[in-house]
């Protein structure tokens, strides 16, 4: 089964450059339907204003962290089923455990290649469809 490349993906990261980097990596995998938000608060506004199929969020952000955003998404009846890929600069055990407990779909440690990012997305989407 091939994954729908027209998935609308929300990238959440406080660094505009990192959002561009992720957008560039997604493009290499054929995913070009992308929206962006600079933190968790902005992400929730986007999620409430338009349909989104997949969330890729940084962990460390001001205002609302990736973990707080994940918890907010999982506790919202309309959003709770959304696939959520967490991006972290380090795979500290405590962080991974907290993210898994909060219902993260998967996580990816920076730095990562386009291949690894796109494999993670496809794996999550296929597991949801199975």
């Amino acid at each position: 089964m091939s994954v729908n490349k027209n998935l609308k993906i929300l990238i959440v990261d406080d660094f505009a450059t990192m959002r561009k980097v992720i957008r560039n990596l997604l493009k290499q995998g054929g995913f070009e339907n992308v929206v962006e938000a600079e933190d968790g608060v902005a992400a929730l506004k986007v999620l409430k204003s338009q349909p989104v199929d997949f969330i890729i969020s940084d962990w460390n952000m001001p205002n609302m962290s990736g973990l707080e955003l994940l918890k907010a998404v999982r506790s919202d009846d309309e959003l709770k089923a959304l696939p959520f890929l967490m991006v972290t600069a380090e795979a500290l055990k405590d962080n991974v455990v907290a993210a898994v407990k909060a219902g993260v779909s998967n996580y990816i440690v920076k730095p990562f290649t386009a291949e690894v990012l796109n494999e993670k997305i496809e794996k999550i989407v296929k597991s949801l469809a199975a």
Partner: protein
Amino acid sequence: MDVRFINPFLNGTVTVLKTMAFVEPKAGKPFLKKDTIARGDISGIIGLTGSARGSLALSFSESSILKIVSNMLGEEIKTLNGDIKDAVGEITNMVSGAARKELETLGFNITAAIPTVVAGKDHSISHVLGGPSIIIPFETANGPFVVDICIGAVGGQ
């Protein structure tokens, strides 16, 4: 400075630049730096605390960082603009993350602060421990950059 700290930062730098920017930097021989003058045109600096304490700086020549960030973004950047500053902060953050992961296997649990970025000719780098620092020089096809670290174990580890 404890030599155990050199390889994790060296390896982290190579991994981050190869993975995110498709640039293969070649490391030169590390040397001691006793002044605070940066060896590049733009630097990312990050504080480290925990079972080791200190700071890490990455100082890039303009030509090297323009190529690195252009590769990361998939678009050509010609001047040291806001995208470059953001990217230097993010690269510093990622190198620190990769190095701390390797240091974790040596028994060090280290957390990092938020990186700051400074630009300009002969700007200064103030290390948390005051210095001297170890410089690991790197060459890329588009110019040099250095990793500038000053870190020490806490509690006689």
